[in-house]
């Protein structure tokens, strides 16, 4: 068991190294460099030379990569070209805000999805199931920027129940941030919930057909007990890994949703950094997204191992 976890962690570490190489190389192969990209029209002569010297761009790529990677291991993400501040300082608050947004979205989306999925699975092909599955399909296919705009139009412009876009600063207190995150989180949780709900539904249907449920029925176990003691816990196990995968989507989703709602998180910062052609910041954010993805997947893998004894005995 421990060996399995160690092996998973090692392969995650390898993935992280690979990600850092890809992130670094990707920007390396672009025409120009961080200085020409950032300075644009002013990037000439002495100004350009000074910038290159300041950023250490005159060193060969391999040396710069080891330097960059070494800094990251020490917790240094470099300096933003546009903001002229340490990247750790810029990213910190925004990472918190994005985590708040994701957490609110997960708190809205996951319980809702699990509940709807169980009911839909138990009442397969009946009216509730068809309505819920249909709605999920629609929710999955509407792009976030459309649902975000629609929600603002309905709830902020039309009904006036909520504010439209977020107008508080990135350092706002946690509680204010949580309430600001509500409408954007609803948008994110729509797609999140739809994916998980469909998975839960399918899983419940599978488990209902399994031998042990049939056995329980034959033994005369009451229906409620079959559902809550046998069907639900077993059908939720595969869902844990789906939640991990959905994080990947969530990271892509926050970029759009944060921009539309002006939510001061990492996603909006990513868009701003690209707009400012601030390559060190873009690099750092790409790496952070990569780390979040890998760590979340590792955590869900471990959670699945802990909760599902069957996985532990499986050894290749």
């Amino acid at each position, binding site marked *: 068991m421990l060996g399995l976890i160690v092996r998973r962690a090692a392969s995650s570490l390898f993935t992280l190294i690979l990600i850092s190489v890809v992130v670094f190389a990707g920007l390396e192969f*672009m*025409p*120009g460099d961080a200085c*020409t*990209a950032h300075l*644009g*029209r*002013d*990037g*000439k002569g002495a100004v*350009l030379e000074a910038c290159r010297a300041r950023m250490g761009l005159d060193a060969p790529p391999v040396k710069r990569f080891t330097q960059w990677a070494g800094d990251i291991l020490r917790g240094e993400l470099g300096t*933003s070209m*546009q*903001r*002229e501040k340490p990247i750790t300082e810029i990213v910190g608050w925004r990472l918190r805000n994005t985590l708040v947004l994701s957490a609110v979205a997960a708190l809205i989306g996951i319980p809702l999805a699990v509940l709807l999925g169980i009911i839909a699975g138990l009442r397969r092909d009946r009216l509730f199931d068809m309505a819920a599955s249909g709605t999920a399909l629609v929710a999955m296919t509407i792009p976030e*920027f459309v649902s975000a*705009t629609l929600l*603002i*139009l309905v709830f*902020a*412009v039309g009904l*006036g129940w909520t*504010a*439209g*876009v977020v*107008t*508080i*600063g*990135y*350092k*706002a207190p946690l509680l204010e941030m949580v309430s600001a995150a509500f409408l954007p989180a609803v948008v994110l949780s729509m797609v999140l919930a739809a994916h998980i709900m469909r998975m839960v539904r399918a899983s419940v249907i599978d488990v209902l057909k399994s031998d042990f449920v049939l056995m329980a029925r034959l033994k005369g176990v009451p229906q409620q007990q079959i559902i809550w003691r046998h069907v639900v816990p077993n059908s939720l196990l595969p869902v844990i890994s789906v939640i991990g995968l959905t994080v990947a989507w969530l990271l892509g989703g926050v970029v759009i949703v944060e*921009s*539309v*709602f*002006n939510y*001061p998180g990492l996603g*909006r910062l990513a*868009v*701003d*950094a690209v*707009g*400012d*052609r*601030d390559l060190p910041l873009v690099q750092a954010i790409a790496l952070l997204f990569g780390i979040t993805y890998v760590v979340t997947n590792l955590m869900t893998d471990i959670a699945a191992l802990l909760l599902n004894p069957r996985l532990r005995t499986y050894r290749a």
Partner: protein
Amino acid sequence: MLRFVIAAAVISGAVTFTAAEAAAEKVFRRANDLSYGGKESLDPISATRFYEVNDMVYSRLVRQDDNGEPAPELATAWTSNDTATEWTIALQSGVTFHDGSAFDAADVKYTLERIKDPALESPLASVLDFIERVDVVDPATAKIVLSKPHAGLPLLLMDYRVRMIPEGSGASIATTGIGTGPFKIESYDPEGQTVLVANEVYWEGSPKLDKVVFTAIPDSEARNQAMMAGQLNFNTLTLDQIPQFKDNPAFSVQNYPAGGWFGLVFRTDTAPYTDARIRKAMRIPVDRAEMMKLMVGEGNGVTGCDQPVKANDPFRAPLDCPPDPEGAKKLLAEAGYPEGIDIEVHTADLEPGMVRFAEVYQQQAAKVGIRVKLTLAPSDGYWDDVWMKVPAAITSWSARPADQILNEAYRTGSAWNESYYANSAYDQILDKARATLDFAGARALYQEAQRILFEEGGTFIPYQQNGLRVLTRDVQGIKPLDEDYIRWHLVDLIPK
């Protein structure tokens, strides 16, 4: 149920309370687009100045009237010696800065001489490099001494960055924002909210608004959403956003002369464009009105005849240049290309429309046998590797006053002379204009310079794009003019 009723009562109470509060206090809400990524500085001469805020908290010596001509602001009058090398400026009395200190000639001296400080790297330094020093004659009079004649000094003092700051405040001004303007800084956070409050003792009268709140919203669609949701009173628009507000009774859309432009630059030092006839043949066949219509839509710009000068500049030449395909063919034949000519034009997807501009030109030029091969260069490094390097490329400029742009981009040897134009007669006209104190005389010279550029210059400029903004209906006192024309102490919110 009871609990629900209480909750509803509390909520409606809260709503009424905020409504009453809003009626008592007039709060004007705007967005800042974070185009400097949080480096927005309250120092008016910084390269990353927080321009939306600076317009409200600082005053200039001279401002433009609605026609773009110099009018008194902190300077009540200005006169020069006969050679336009010494300017005596009389100052408004009784003006105080936001910190309570009095504004006088020493502040003028400090502000203007500080611009030259090389450590600040202000983009304004090269514009005002001919100011040698400022003498304090008495507290209400300053004398500006120039290193060479400049009759256009009042026009240059109108620049939206030449704003007066207190003597000795250079080290702190970037975050304090202490000026003499109608609003003063209450809190400053360019990445969050920046709050301005009315300067009750503003020397032109107390502002009608109580507060101005700026929220950082970098995404232009998010700014629109905020506008729609009633979170903003004022916002700039791009062309494609007009329909969202145009027919909505809650908003009014303003369209005002601004002056940003795209151009097609032919390097006058590179064959075949060394021949002035070919340069002219490249420019005159185009139907400029049609091109503007295709690019920005009718009424959203002002057509021109290759003039870099903005549409409402008092020195803009009234030129007329209807499409002349026959003339272009004749010039091409004379220059040795009777069968037409093959050229290559570089562009990049740097700004919306920059590629389409080249495509529309390609179609327009085809009718006289100018066969344009378009080359799409990577956006990254365009200004470094393509612009001012290849023989013909698309360029993009924001509005600049006549004297500035005509010198900056066309004078022999100047750093941003993108067409490598070299004409000593042209340079002499600009020198003479700077030495001509009579306004009409100077105007005639600047107009002559634009005429020369149309006849033989290397830059094709079919139109200047207008600026667009949307206001909520209750906003009063904002004329359809560029932002630095707005008199913010007169702006009001009157619910309808």
